[in-house]
């Protein structure tokens, strides 16, 4: 069991780097969907006997349905309708953003050593994975121009927050975690509507066209 969990955490981090490096939007969305599925698996793997199984299943099922299926499906529909395939000109190139992502992973492992876990029985990879994924998400949002990639970055960021939330499944009320999943859905939903409108107003999904507001 332990080695499976190790593997899942490592895969989550590898997917972070993959999303940073991929220029093809379809591949990136698939990677984020796979990451969502891994999170759902992790929720099950990390559950110990002390956990309320109904709650664990709810979180795992919710993550699978929303993060791995529903949102990727919405994203695929968005890029199909708008006929875009690639992130053409990222503000930061793919190799530099990979390197920045790698630096983030190293820093995340170093930083989490300084934060002693009050619950020592938890997996040692959990906190660094969460921090590295949050960092990747932030990086994606600020370094890409397409609205779709920015939303993708936001999803990766939320995935990182979710990994951290796994630490707390034992003693967080269901409501808060349901709020997480709902929030994700709602955020992307609204973003999707906005994207649709951006497409109509600017006839492209390039947020660089949106630069008339400045001082």
């Amino acid at each position: 069991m332990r080695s499976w969990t190790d593997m899942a955490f490592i895969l989550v981090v590898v997917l972070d780097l993959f999303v940073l490096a991929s220029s093809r939007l379809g591949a990136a969305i698939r990677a984020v969907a796979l990451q969502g599925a891994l999170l759902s698996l992790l929720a099950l793997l990390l559950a110990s006997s002390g956990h309320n199984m109904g709650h664990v299943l709810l979180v795992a099922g919710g993550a699978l349905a929303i993060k791995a299926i529903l949102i990727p499906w919405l994203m695929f529909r968005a890029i199909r309708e708008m006929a875009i395939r690639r992130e053409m000109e990222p503000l930061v190139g793919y190799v530099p953003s990979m390197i920045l992502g790698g630096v983030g992973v190293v820093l995340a492992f170093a930083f989490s050593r300084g934060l002693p876990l009050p619950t020592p029985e938890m997996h040692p990879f959990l906190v660094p994975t969460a921090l590295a994924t949050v960092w990747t998400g932030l990086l994606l949002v600020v370094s890409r121009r397409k609205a779709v990639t920015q939303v993708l970055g936001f999803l990766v960021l939320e995935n990182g927050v979710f990994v951290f939330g796994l630490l707390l499944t034992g003693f967080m009320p269901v409501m808060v975690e349901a709020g997480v999943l709902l929030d994700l859905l709602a955020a992307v939903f609204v973003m999707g509507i906005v994207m649709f409108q951006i497409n109509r107003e600017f006839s492209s999904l390039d947020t660089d066209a949106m630069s008339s507001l400045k001082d």
Partner: protein
Amino acid sequence: MILLIILVSFVLGASAFAWPDNRTRPRLLLVGAAIHLAGVVSLWIHPEGPVLSGYLFLDAAGKVVLSTSSVLFVASAIYAQGYLRRRDDRDNRIFVGGLLVLLSAMTTVGVAQHLGVLWVAVELTTLATAPLIYFNHNARSLEAAWKYLLVSSLGIALALLGTFFLALSGAGPGGPKSLLLDDLIRAGPELSRPWVRTAFVFLLVGYGTKMGLAPLHSWKPDAYGEAPGLLGALMAGGITNFAFLSVVRVFQVTRAAGEGAFASDALLALGLLSMALAAVFMAGQRDFKRMLAYSSVEHMGILAVALGLGGTAVGGAFYHVVNNGLSKGVLFLAAGNIHRAYGSKRTDEVRGAIRRLPVSGPLFLAGFLAVTGTPPFSPFWSEFIILNGAFSTGRWVVGAFFLLFLAVIFIGMGATVLHVVQGDDRGTPARPGFGDGWLTAGPPLVLLLLVLALGLWLPRALQGLFAAAAHLVTGA
């Protein structure tokens, strides 16, 4: 009663989406505002204990912010009657419904005693506001809405991470496994300090983004510049105040855990940076609604500085929350009227507003004087208390910078405002039929009179409330 207020606004918001008639729908805003105000008044007369096993409770700090917003929402709802009648070309379904949902979400932030509930409610304010910014359905308002949504969502995601950190800090053996404010504060020193410190950083960044503290304010000029004046009033005088309340909640826990000094320094730094940035960008601003956005950055900075100073300045901060809310209402509603009467918000096209708009023009000028802290308006007194708090505790450098930035901002903002209100309005773009009406000029006038009245005489009940709110934070 607390639950009732939240639910009524929410249900009214939902029914606004189903309401068939575009012309009568804005009246739902009046109903929602009146019920909300009545509810808040009844909570003043008959204070209510904790509800939903302590998750919701209106304490003194929440009461300050909630009461201010309730008054502001009433003014905005009346204003909306005039505004939406003039904009009856546009479907106001989303606008009216969104405003009522926003009211419900803001109220929840005001009464939340659980950091998870607080977070969900803050997120809901973002979701309810973003579509409203896009009310004008043009490329510029779309850009503003997109920026607002993306930047706020990022902030809110980081705030969630911070909330998790805080939950973890109390998760040790024997510690509380709860995010209830009372439990966390009671646990105080038992919380794991490295986690509390990290949590504070993330939560300050997250809720600071909602407040619009520099350097996290990038959404603000765009959103306030493009949103209708009445939404600007509710954002600058309502939502940002509630975001400040969220920071106050986090500060309470951080302080109880013994990391108060660290948190104070961070707040002072961000607060002074916000004031400095506002001073720089206010000078030579060519768009009077964007100018108001920088004024909002400034006042959020003032609140952060006051919270960071601690001691007597915290009471001043809660006084300033009221003053900021009301005077932002005056400014944004008056600016909206000027914007409509000229069809422009650029200072090279708008001048002589006093001649063209005999009420809104002078109100804009008076609102400027009030918000920059000119006596006898109430912001003068709250800023005075904060400054006094800085000097009496020997924080000379902070006090000196505070004064310097206030002076620079007064000059910078004054130049723009005088340009707009003075002079001859001949040759400027005109839109006949968009002059001052009772419904659009009355609400900001009443708000200004309130700001003036609070400056001349502060009721004992309010003084007691500010002291009680400050007591929650400083424990003294």
